[in-house]
């Protein structure tokens, strides 16, 4: 299948939904494409429409009124025929063409079948979000250890609580809604281990005070946690997990200022489930091969560089949301709207009332960005986190490359970045292509304070060679 439009939006999370809605209101023909079974992305992850009654999840969400309004706008435009919404479609690559961009996807609506789809448009907006940043620890590959986002996605997408006694760890405000949701659905959350110091937020009061909605959201989670008697331990980290076939015991320790476990503070906590997250990594897989510049996001990662209209450095290519630096759903919605206004302007679409309020949205973006930056500074990766690794701790889960092997590549072959380590040790060469281990390997070999830039991945999601073969033009090649 091949289809063309004025704008292709990849990712139907908060940023992509908002961008598509604004562009549609402005009169454009839009294709909105997402790998999920329902619009919403990770933040507003929902079961498919047909299963909403069987799997109720409304109580787990925040900001649902915005979500519902965006859904209503999108379905109205499906009615007018200007929106093509493609769910269960996985984009495997994008390419620049003379008149814009070609987006190559596989329709997996009836997995494992794959059907090639190509979408073409003069403008492309990538809103692919982010995923949990992981730091390995001994036992992190035991069954029952999940990412914090993984626990949340099971809850929001399938109504499933992954375990009965849960310890959460890592850093960042995202741990709190996960803890609250698990507790609300009957799991015993034994501890939330936050590596940052409790006073850290106080260093940036202005950014926090300008975002009262964030206070309210935080207060709601705090209330839920208090009601369920969930202890939040700051300056504490999960430093190990033990068990036979499934995690049974979690080891936690208090951290010194550098993040090194303090001797004598280790505790052993019985748990069958662990959720870990150290902030997020922007999902840049579709942006990097197109050649767009990156910028330091301030949280130890590189993100797409954009101007104040969400334009990347590649003409016709826009991005919004976590790809520009992690900052949450409200920011993503504002950025999506700003990006769509830029697309409308750049394509010289006739102005329509109500679709262009860029000044207000840009102020909202600036306010949310300031808040995100303050949050990132309050929740840094503890610089000494590698102290809790043993030489035999797997760092790359796919190829089972240990911390010792990564350190040896640095010592013996002077490897100074994760790409070089990959070539020498296979860390990052397996199924996940370094999406899980990349940030950790980066920390282990690169200079301190150098943000993580992911390796370029020309293939954004695995596709079968058969489906690829069928997607190409017929050749007369006799082999």
């Amino acid at each position, binding site marked *: 299948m091949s289809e063309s439009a004025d704008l292709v939006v990849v990712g139907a999370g908060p940023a992509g939904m908002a961008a598509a809605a604004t562009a549609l209101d402005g009169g454009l023909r839009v294709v909105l494409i997402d790998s999920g079974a329902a619009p919403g992305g990770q933040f507003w992850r929902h079961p498919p429409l047909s299963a909403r009654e069987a799997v109720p999840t409304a109580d787990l969400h925040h900001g649902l009124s915005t979500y519902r309004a965006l859904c209503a706008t999108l379905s109205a435009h499906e009615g007018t025929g200007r929106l093509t919404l493609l769910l269960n479609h996985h984009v495997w690559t994008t390419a620049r063409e003379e008149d814009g961009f*070609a987006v190559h996807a596989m329709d997996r609506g009836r997995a494992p079948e794959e059907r090639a789809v190509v979408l073409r448009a003069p403008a492309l907006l990538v809103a692919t979000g982010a995923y949990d940043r992981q730091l390995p620890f001994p036992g992190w590959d035991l069954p029952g250890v999940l990412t914090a986002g993984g626990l949340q996605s099971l809850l929001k997408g399938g109504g499933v609580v992954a375990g009965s006694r849960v310890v959460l760890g890592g850093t960042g405000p995202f741990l709190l809604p996960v803890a609250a949701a698990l507790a609300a659905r009957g799991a015993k959350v034994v501890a939330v281990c936050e590596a940052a110091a409790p006073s850290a937020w106080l260093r940036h009061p202005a950014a926090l005070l300008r975002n009262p909605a964030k206070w309210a959201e935080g207060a709601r989670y705090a209330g839920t946690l208090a009601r369920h008697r969930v202890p939040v331990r700051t300056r504490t980290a999960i430093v190990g997990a033990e068990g036979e076939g499934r995690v049974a015991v979690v080891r936690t320790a208090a951290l010194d200022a550098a993040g090194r476990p303090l001797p004598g503070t280790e505790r052993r906590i019985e748990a069958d489930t662990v959720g870990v997250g150290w902030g997020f990594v922007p999902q840049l897989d579709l942006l990097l091969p197109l050649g767009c510049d990156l910028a330091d996001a301030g949280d130890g990662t590189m993100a797409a560089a954009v101007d104040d209209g969400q334009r990347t450095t590649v003409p016709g290519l826009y991005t919004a949301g976590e790809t520009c630096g992690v900052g949450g759903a409200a920011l993503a919605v504002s950025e999506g709207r700003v990006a769509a206004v830029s697309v409308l302007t750049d394509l010289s679409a006739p102005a329509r009332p109500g679709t262009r309020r860029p000044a207000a949205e840009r102020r909202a973006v600036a306010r949310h960005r300031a808040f995100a930056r303050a949050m990132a500074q309050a929740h840094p990766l503890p610089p000494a986190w590698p102290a809790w690794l043993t030489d035999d701790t797997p760092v790359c889960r796919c190829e089972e490359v240990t911390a010792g092997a990564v350190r040896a590549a640095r010592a013996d*072959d002077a490897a100074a970045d994760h790409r070089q380590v990959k*070539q020498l040790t296979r860390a990052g060469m397996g199924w996940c292509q370094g999406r899980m281990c990349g940030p950790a390997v980066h920390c282990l070999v690169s200079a301190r304070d150098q943000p993580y830039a992911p390796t370029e991945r*020309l293939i954004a999601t695995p*596709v079968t*060679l058969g489906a690829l*073969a069928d997607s190409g*033009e017929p050749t007369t090649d006799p082999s």
Partner: protein
Amino acid sequence: MKVVVVGAGIVGAACAFHAAAAGLDVTVLDRGPVGAGTTSRGEGNILLSDKEPGPELELARLSRDLWDEAAEELGPETVEFETKGGLVVASTPDALGALHAFAARQAAAGVRTEAVERVGELEPHVAPGLPGGVHYPQDAQVQPVLAAAGLLRAAVRHGARTHTGEAVAAVTGTDGRIAGVRTADGTVLPADAVVNAAGTWGGEVGRRLGAPVGILPRRGFVLVTEPLPPMIRHKVYSADYVANVASSDEGLETSCVVEGTRAGTILIGASRERVGFDTSMNPAVVARLAAQACRLFPFLRGVHLIRAYRGFRPYCPDHLPVIGPDPRVPGVLHACGHEGAGIGLAPGTGALVTAQLLGRPWRGADPAAHTGLLPDRFLTTGGVPK
């Protein structure tokens, strides 16, 4: 003798390995880490099968023996050295006839070849109905970055040093002979000889040293599948690959090359495009490579592509590497332009360059036997490029 090798790819590492083993004072200069350029973008081919009789095949035969020696010294496991053999298959009786004629000429030049009637006996998963092929037992494979890193480490054990920096200019004495290399930060590395082993950037490095050579990039994509249990035993390719390697056509050429790796992934090549240093993704190339691989090995239809990478093969207009002293700047030697054969030709190149530096044969490399690769072929007798 002080030697600066510019380039820490497989060729530079092999030059340093041999020169240091011969007792020369070697410094390897590169702006990046070991094997980060074209070395990291290839499959690790050590091939005789794709080379027609001539100067490149002679170097390849020497190099094949030296790979055995090098793997022995480095540890074959540490560089994933596999003497797996190659299997070239023809898809039509006509192509098979041409392949047999080609193989007969190679055999006359000293290559071991074995006609194969039933390719399915060597490769159980190959497509049924192929008329036949030729087995090349000497073809081998190595993991290129591990090999470059291993050779460089061995060179350091023999006394070589490494220096991170970018070569910007030659320092020459009053006699016009090279006296050193200046790097981007102003450091001067003193040298009696400078080896240009900068691969795809060899043309630019040659220019900076006052001895320009015409090295151009030829883009290629390689596809990597999910890891699988062993399914493909040899390096298997279609007979048209040989024609494409030697082709000077401007446009896109793809010919099917499929092989397994120690890690379980299957590598699929090879495309050839002359598009300069254009890094953009070309989905049509990927689709065409996938289609060709699936025709050769039908089971691949259900196997996932998980990665693709592209690199730039450094090639000379006559598709032969340029190896040896440049008469325009005494002390400058070129060792680049290996196109897609740099991994296989690296130890032979390193030994040949070392022999040229020493002025006598080294490890089976006799400068007098490889004159067809000298830079002179691009120059008039007055030293002006032809």
